[in-house]
């Protein structure tokens, strides 16, 4: 029968597309889904699934415009046929896509729809998911405003409002996932809640959440989640002024980064430890960790990280009175700052070099461009400088990797 054969071929194409996406070949999966749509089907459940999977495949491929298009098709279709469960899912997926595109207000509307339907049909898990999505939308909204150059520790009220809303939704999600006994979901939420509190400046609350996150990561033997928790804990303890405790957490971060063979994260942990030991005024240890950071930065060809390491090493050696060593690193810092176009780093380095010259009482025969406008200063030599210019760049973020794809626990 012709009709039957046509239906089968659409279904076959779609099933092949699904199989390909399952094994992570989204490009090929997309081709099969597109072909299935070309063939067409009268089974609207199948069509909805195709739209939805296409949207997700495009999301994985970072083609968010296309993802939006297909999740929107899915939403329209499910509404037309009155498929509430399907509409809830489509709303959630659409909300996630809008969030990634930075269209937060529209994302909120989708999350609300997802939540309302889930409540109406008594779907607890759906409610939990909608609340989690909600939290993520507000969290992302807050962060996106933060990134646009707020003064540190002085976020605009708009940011604080969004972050507070995120915290409320995460708390509401937690209540449900605890009730459902879903530990993996609890872990994720605790982590995000901890980060939200951290950004809000509620460092004690952040610690409490990340402690829970750590516990659950250990339960699942999820070492990369464990590493994230230790790192977040270390950061929170820095702002609580508990540098000794912070150093312990950073050490665990470092151990796990090494076990996981993640060099960039290892470098970041060494850099954090170097700075923490500087705060503890243990300059020998600080130097040890900054050197470790320097070596990895060089291995990874991370010039910005290398510049940071040299700056830190120059300061630590200055603090110890090793002026020759300090000079070596200050000059390297200067060279790298110029190379990377870091104006404020360059100014800082120039002044450090010139101070050190004064101390060493040497007249360096450097090329004139290096020291042409470096002024003699009478400032005490303590490795410190008034800020000569603010930068809001987040260049050292290049050191940090995005959180790798989280595996489902369990």
């Amino acid at each position, binding site marked *: 029968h012709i009709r039957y054969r046509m239906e089968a071929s659409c279904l076959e194409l779609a099933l092949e597309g699904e199989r390909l996406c399952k094994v992570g070949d989204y490009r090929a999966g997309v081709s099969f889904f597109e072909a299935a749509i070309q063939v067409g089907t009268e089974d609207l459940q199948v069509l909805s699934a195709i739209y939805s999977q296409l949207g*997700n495949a495009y999301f994985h491929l970072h083609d*968010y415009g296309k993802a939006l298009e297909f999740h929107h098709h899915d939403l329209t279709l499910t509404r037309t046929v009155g498929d509430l469960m399907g509409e809830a899912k489509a709303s959630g997926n659409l909300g996630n896509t809008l969030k990634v595109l930075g269209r937060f207000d529209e994302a909120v509307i989708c999350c609300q729809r997802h939540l309302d339907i889930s409540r109406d049909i008594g779907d607890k898990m759906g409610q939990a998911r909608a609340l989690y999505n909600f939290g993520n939308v507000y969290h992302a909204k807050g962060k996106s405003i933060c990134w646009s150059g707020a003064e540190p520790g002085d976020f605009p009220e708009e940011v604080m409002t969004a972050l507070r809303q995120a915290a409320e939704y995460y708390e509401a999600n937690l209540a449900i996932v605890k009730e459902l006994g879903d530990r993996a979901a609890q*872990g*994720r939420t605790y982590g995000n809640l901890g980060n939200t509190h951290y950004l809000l400046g509620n460092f004690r609350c952040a610690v409490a959440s990340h402690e829970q996150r750590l516990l659950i990561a250990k339960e699942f033997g999820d070492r990369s989640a464990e590493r994230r928790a230790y790192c977040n804990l270390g*950061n929170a303890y820095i702002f609580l002024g508990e540098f000794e405790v912070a150093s312990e957490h950073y050490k665990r971060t470092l151990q796990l980064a090494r076990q996981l063979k993640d060099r960039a994260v290892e470098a970041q942990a060494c850099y954090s430890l170097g700075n923490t030991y500087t705060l503890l005024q243990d300059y020998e240890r600080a130097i040890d960790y900054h050197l470790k950071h320097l070596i990895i930065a060089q291995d990874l060809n991370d010039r910005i990280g290398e510049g940071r390491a040299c700056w830190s090493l120059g300061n630590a050696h200055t603090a110890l009175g090793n002026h020759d060593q300090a000079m070596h690193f200050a000059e390297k810092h200067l060279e790298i700052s110029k190379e990377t176009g870091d104006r404020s780093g360059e100014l*800082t380095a120039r002044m450090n070099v010139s101070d050190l010259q004064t101390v060493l009482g040497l007249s360096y025969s450097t090329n004139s461009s290096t020291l042409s406008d470096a002024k003699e200063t009478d400032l005490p030599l303590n490795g410190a400088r008034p800020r000569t210019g603010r930068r809001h760049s987040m260049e*050292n973020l290049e050191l940090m990797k*995005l959180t790798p*794809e989280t595996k489902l626990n369990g």
Partner: protein
Amino acid sequence: LRAVSSRVKALQVDSVQRWMEDLRHMTEVECMCVLQAKHIGAEEEGGHQGELIVASALGAGGEH
């Protein structure tokens, strides 16, 4: 926080101050995007009801 900042300022290490300014924005994120799947076949997968975890590329604001 103010107390900590002033302690750092007292130490007068500009490189540490700069690190702390960046640190204030830094978070190691969990997965920020959970998509849900609809299956073509009738067989729903057990366990996570077709939950797809997606490591967020952009939505997390490239956070750490």
